[in-house]
């Protein structure tokens, strides 16, 4: 069975400080990993996906298969980064599988 663990329920940092939101997963194969974000009073939306190897809003995430982790990082946090962040996993599908398994989420607060 696949599982996603986000060990921190709450994370509080000051503006300009580095931030790292942790995500660990359990899956025997090569999964696809995503970070979704929910800003206050907005709907859940995709932030980034590991296969794109992109940086969105200054955030990056590297898939570490050895440690089965997909931590989200940003070198300098901004107040507008305050939100709920969810790590999610999908089994490789060829397009027919769209079940996402989500972690419980981490609420990030960036203080001024």
């Amino acid at each position: 069975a696949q599982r996603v663990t986000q060990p921190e329920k709450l994370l509080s940092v000051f503006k300009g400080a580095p931030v790292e939101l942790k995500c660990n997963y359990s899956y025997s194969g090569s999964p696809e990993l995503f970070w979704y974000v929910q800003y206050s009073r907005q709907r859940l939306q995709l932030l980034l996906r590991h296969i794109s190897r992109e940086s969105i809003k200054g955030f990056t995430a590297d898939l570490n298969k050895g440690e089965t982790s997909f931590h989200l990082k940003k070198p300098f946090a901004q107040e507008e980064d305050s939100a709920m962040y969810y790590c999610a996993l999908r089994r490789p599908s060829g397009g027919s599988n769209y079940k996402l398994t989500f972690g419980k989420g981490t609420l990030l607060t960036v203080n001024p």
Partner: protein
Amino acid sequence: DAGVTQSPTHLIKTRGQQVTLRCSPKSGHDTVSWYQQALGQGPQFIFQYYEEEERQRGNFPDRFSGHQFPNYSSELNVNALLLGDSALYLCASRRSLADTGELFFGEGSRLTVL
């Protein structure tokens, strides 16, 4: 484009009753998934509909059923409601031919079972 729209936004039911939640996908999307999000938890996959058929199902009892209509909109039905069914129900859509990994979520329907 209004994106994914869900109705109702809030509703209250009593144990044993039945509920129907509705979802209209984002324009151009043909695949709809439903998720249950209990308080303090991440969304949990219920099922996915494509071409008016249930294609994939999560670990939910048969009390949870759904339907997809020819216009791609979808309904989630829950029978014999239990207190534990109280949650935010999220609908998500995507275009089947654009498998980018992105789901577009609605704002959810918050169900309270008393």
